[in-house]
């Protein structure tokens, strides 16, 4: 899917840092909140891991 390709290419750079370069104060406020969201979302893989393990453990039970 073309959109995946575009997004993957784009995500090689940190878009927040790119946008910071010429950001207005309002855009900076947005970028601050976006970074906060990103930090929280980075905990999602840990939850995925916990769910993976939980499913495996339940399936393996007799």
């Amino acid at each position, binding site marked *: 899917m073309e959109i995946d390709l575009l997004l993957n290419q784009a995500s090689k750079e940190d878009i927040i840092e790119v946008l910071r370069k010429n950001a207005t104060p309002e855009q900076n406020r947005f970028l601050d*909140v*976006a970074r906060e969201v990103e930090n929280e979302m980075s905990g999602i893989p840990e939850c995925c891991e*916990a769910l993976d393990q*939980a499913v495996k453990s339940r399936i393996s039970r007799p």
Partner: protein
Amino acid sequence: MSYKKEMESFISKNRESICESLGLKSHEIIDSDLRIMAAYLTPKAGEKNFDAGNGIDTSFIEDLKRLPRNKVGEEILLKAIEAKEKGESLGRRMPNALSKRQLFSPKVEAAMQERRREMSSESFGKLSGNVVMLKTHLKTLAQLLHGDSSFAEPSFRFQIRTILKMISSDLNKCNYQARAGAVWAIKSGISADSAAIAVNQVYLRHLNQLSKTFAPVDELINANGIDCKMSKQIDSIKERWYQEFQEVFQMKKDIVHGNRFVAEPSL
């Protein structure tokens, strides 16, 4: 057919999509709600080609017709909320039909207000807090599944159902808030394609992983007779964003190649 009649008929054909965007059931929206919505989206009679300072003109209904069906309700709602906030129809003045006596029914009014709050920039500020809740609920689900309780126990089934409802509601809230973020980004002057990349970087790519993780979770829970479609819910959230991204990037491509000159769509 007058523009207003055409809008009324179009809106009533898309009743389901509007209900879905409002988070209401079909019977919770009454016919007068749809008529009022149509009035908000109709230019003042006789002003067929009114000067659209806000970028909306009478071709709006044609634009709506070109949208994928699942996006029509959302677009109608956003425009109606916008017009309602300004206290006017998309024309210059409120049509007489929209007197103070004719308000949306209480459920629709409340749902519209809720959506308006969700679309504000403060709403995006709440996203990180909601992600914290989502993570807590995901971990609780993992603990429940990891534990010794059996699906045969009614109390365990109840716990599973409750936590699934919470996760589903967290996901919806997060999505509205992420949308509010995209709208805020664009209103602040960030280009639509950069906003799309930012949404993907901070939010969407992790949802992808969550959807994959949920496939076997859904399977396990469904196999035990509890309805669980979390992976499907996440995929449909993701698909909707992708559709919009596709338009944004296509538009950018067209602009770069000089194929057309158009305003960037609002996410």
